[in-house]
């Protein structure tokens, strides 16, 4: 009982503050990451040679470098060339760029899976290439990319804990500080883990609802 009171009085407010910081990191990173992914994925399929090359290099770099190393570069490395980013900005930029690289691969795969006839039909009606991509191909491709991109969102929730390594004290950071202070690693990290599990479960549920909402009969999700 005393233990519960202690957790409620001393630990919960701190962890909630950490959770709030995590949410503030995750939401903009998820949005920016998805937008970057759509742009880079589209360029990899439909860009000209130069843009395809740029998008390919982007994916190579941001998917190949460990995320922690990227965060160190933005936070500790950039001041070397006179650019000073806050811990929060470093984390959001790092998460967005890395997440965008992964999203782009899901979008690329989805775009490549759309039958060429869809593009030809759009052209035959007088669509420009850009308009056909945005009006016809991407709405289909994003439906196909959603399961993979949703997975990336769940990853983002978990790897947002790396922000702690560039002094942006989010949920894991708060948990770590509290555990060290009270020497209660088992209790506090169990709670921290459970909160991540809860966040991932809520997002996963939301993604399933979204998949149902945008489902088109006969398009990718046959009802069995």
């Amino acid at each position, binding site marked *: 009982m005393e233990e519960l009171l202690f957790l409620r009085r001393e630990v919960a407010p701190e962890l909630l503050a950490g959770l709030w910081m995590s949410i503030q990191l995750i939401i903009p990173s998820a949005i920016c990451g998805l937008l970057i992914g759509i742009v880079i994925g589209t360029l990899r399929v439909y860009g000209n040679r130069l843009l395809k090359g740029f998008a390919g290099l982007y994916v190579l770099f941001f998917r190949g470098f460990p995320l922690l190393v990227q965060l160190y570069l933005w936070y500790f490395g950039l001041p070397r060339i006179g650019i000073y980013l806050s811990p929060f900005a470093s984390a959001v930029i790092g998460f967005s760029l890395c997440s965008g690289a992964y999203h782009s691969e899901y979008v690329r795969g989805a775009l490549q899976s759309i*039958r060429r*006839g*869809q593009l*030809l*039909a*759009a*052209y*035959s*009606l*007088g*669509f*420009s290439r850009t*308009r056909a991509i945005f*009006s*016809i191909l991407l*709405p*289909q491709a994003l*439906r196909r990319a959603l399961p993979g991109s949703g997975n990336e969102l769940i990853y983002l929730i978990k790897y947002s804990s790396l922000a702690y390594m560039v002094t942006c004290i989010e949920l894991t950071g708060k948990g770590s500080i509290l555990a060290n202070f009270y020497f209660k690693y088992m209790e506090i990290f169990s709670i921290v883990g459970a909160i991540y599990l809860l966040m991932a479960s809520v997002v996963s549920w939301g993604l399933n609802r979204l998949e149902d909402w945008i489902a*088109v*009969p*006969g*398009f990718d999700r046959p009802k069995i």
Partner: protein
Amino acid sequence: MEEETRGMAEQVPMLSVQDVHKHFGGVPVLNGVSLNLFRGDIKVVIGPSGGGKSTLLHCINFLVELDAGRIFLNGVRVNHTRKRELYAYRQKVGMIFQDFNLFDHLDALHNVMIGLVQVRKLPRSEARQRAEAELERVGLGDHMAKYPAELSGGQKQRVSIARALAMEPGVMLLDEPTSALDPELIGEVHEVIRALASRGMTMLLVTHEIGFAGTLANEIYFMDGGRIVEQGPPQKILFDAEQARTREFCSKIGRLHENSG
């Protein structure tokens, strides 16, 4: 566009295809194909598979880039390198594909509406009205809210015809519109094409249905090896062709139809 000087007395074709060449990976597919479509013409292209029929239609719509040759619409040469001109040309030349190519994420109504809204920039209410009218016309008034996966092959092809017609094209290119259909669904698409013909629509149709072609066309082209081997009125091409290759093809297809009938 580059104006072509023409004699005053000469009637200008709506669509003129001149000396079109196309190679795929060094293999010639079209070897100098030329044809003219005048207003109200219904011309049918027949021939063996791989003879270049579909490629010809794709080239006319610039869905495949020409190696050489010229396309004229109402006497004006189409410069496909000018994007705006190309998009405007494609709106005037409707295209029907063998495998329908309906937009899978849109229901029948929105398949027909999307070109009107996105390309013709019509207000949504007006586009909706026109799309509903076109779907009614092809007999799909009760199927507007259905997605492509919920429609039969014949219904899909009728939606694709309604989608092309909604853009008010002057000429229709139909690339084997019934070849992907079950035999019992072919009739409903033929009916729609006949209705189009009776409205005076100018059409270039690629088909293997020579019986249908014979009753519809005012001229038939027989294509083989990327060339127009022979052309003429249906009676002549189907029953009294000059070229041995044409006779051989027509008699084989005729026998096939007799046996299957």
